[in-house]
């Protein structure tokens, strides 16, 4: 069975990527191992999905909990991942607090000394945070609160979620999202419970079809996931 490991920075990315993979691959195809990398240890949180003999692919999703940078966590785990049959390892990190003009330098930096024999390693950078992707899913605002209209958002926040790419227009997407929600007395909550609510509000079809053309970092990340999903099965 083909195996992929994904390392992300925190809860937001963890729950979002989990849901995104299920949406892209289709439910019932992927067996997940959900883990947490903290204090130098990899802690298994839960396994889910079809049994191993029925699953088409296996994905270990790891939350680095912010205390271990994604690249270091991957390099630290690479020998074990290789020995346990993984072929591909993906990392997802934010550009923020760095700015857009630093993206090129960061991309080059994360590629430096980032390899392990027999493993395909890649790090994707969300510009500036994955909240930028949420910002452009413009239909979800009405589900947050019907009073949060497109006109109100444009007039009050100065950001047009339909026409502008949050990637280039918004320096701190999580802050912008929070300030938009605050227009109607709501708040963007990055805690675990808040993330579950957030994911229930997002329309993943819209993300897939409407946000990808507006957000090159999201498009690249989805292509990275699809590259694995669509790859031929392995013998082992």
């Amino acid at each position, binding site marked *: 069975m083909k195996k992929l490991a994904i390392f992300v920075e925190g809860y937001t990315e963890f729950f979002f990527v989990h849901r995104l993979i299920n949406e892209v691959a289709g439910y019932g195809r992927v067996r997940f191992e959900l883990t947490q990398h*903290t*204090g*130098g240890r990899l802690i298994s949180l839960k396994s889910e999905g079809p049994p191993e003999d029925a699953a088409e692919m296996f994905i270990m999703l790891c939350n680095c909990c912010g*205390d*271990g*940078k*994604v*690249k*270091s*966590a991957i390099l630290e785990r690479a020998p074990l991942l290789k020995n346990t049959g993984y072929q591909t390892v993906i990392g997802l*990190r934010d550009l923020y607090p*760095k700015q857009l003009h*630093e993206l090129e*330098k*960061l991309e*080059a*930096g*994360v590629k*430096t*000394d980032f390899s392990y024999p027999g493993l395909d390693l890649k*790090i994707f950078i969300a510009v500036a945070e994955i909240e930028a992707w949420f910002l452009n899913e413009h239909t979800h605002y009405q589900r947050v609160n019907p009073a949060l209209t497109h006109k109100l958002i444009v007039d009050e926040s100065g950001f047009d979620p339909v026409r502008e790419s949050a990637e280039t227009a918004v320096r701190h997407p999580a802050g912008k999202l929070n300030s938009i929600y605050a227009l109607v007395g709501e708040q963007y909550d990055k805690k675990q419970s808040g993330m579950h609510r957030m994911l229930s509000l997002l329309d993943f079809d819209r993300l897939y079809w409407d946000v990808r053309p507006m957000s090159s970092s999201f498009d690249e990340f989805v292509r990275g996931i699809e590259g694995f999903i669509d790859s031929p099965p392995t013998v082992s």
Partner: protein
Amino acid sequence: MYLTSIEYQEHQGTSNYWSVKKLEFGNVNLIVGKNSSGKSRIINIINALAVSLAGRAAPFGSGSWSAEFERQKGLQREPQVYKVEFKDTAIVHESFKVKSNTVMERGASGEGYVASRKGGRVKYQVPRDRLMAVMRSDPYQHPQFEHLKIWSTSLCVYRFGSEFGKGSLTMQNQPSPAGGQQDGLDMAAAVDNASNVFLMTHAKFGFDFEFSVLQDLESIGYPCTYVGMHPIQNINFAGSFPLGLAVKEAGLACLTTQNDMSQGMYRALALIVQVNANILWAQSRKVGRELLPGDSPMIIIDDIGEGLDFDRSKRLIHLLVQKALKYKIQLIMSSNDRFIMNDVPLEYWTVLHREGSVVRPFNYMNSKSVFDEFEYLGLNNFDFFSHEYFKASSQG
């Protein structure tokens, strides 16, 4: 006063030669380095200078210090430089500079001068093994030494990785080693006696102190509903029981005394007691205004987090950094724990690297570009240390 840098050497010209190149400090500092790179030794160097200037140390066989300070004077910062060199338990040179003026200098004979308030020089002769800065410190005649004296007498060095006073108990009716309450508590004299610090501080500040200790314990993952002093029943001094720290942990019906606490929990509690007491006593000396840099004693914590689990040690460091920034405390911590290193921003780091008998520090102040570049590699802070990225500055 803030210590802004220190440079040290000893046994110059002999096989025992050992030196620390200029090590600059910020407000918050984490000293990291491999074992035997000199972390604890640097702490000892700062401490030795302080106890000498406080008049509490015998002369050293060998040692040469150059220490730069900054004194907050209104909105201005006034630089001060103190230098001293010991050889064969005598002082061969000593000087003190305030801004660009040398206000004291003496030679090996003990002869020298101190600048007078009117601008002239007053000649003095002090014993060869005594510091002029100590012998001639006088708030009326030579007030220039006052801030140096305050810095040196108040410096608190906490050895977190040690027993840290777990065995020190307090008798309620005995005089405190840390003195009375009129001028505040001498925290430097009670660094290994958290129970006494608690007793004296609680007597003065009551619930405010208790509340801040409980709040901090909770913030690092030890929720407690009570903290106080409790008789230690299994120790009896002529019919009376000594007092020790005790907490009531949330969810437990009984008290946990300092004797029964895990070493990690005791260390965390003792440090929280000490730091909060430091803040409250400093505030009580500066009533009516916010604390400025130098109002609180400089705090040094060796082996921070040692004995605590990862999550609590991470939270403890966050708490300390937060307090240091809020109350303008100069904080120096040392550690070689990788998880602590990963959690403390690189801007606070000093990496020590020893080449033979020479210790070189690398930090933002002397290697800014290397630290900045490292940020783009997307690696853990620990990798900066373990892969020796910091050395790029000496190679570049």
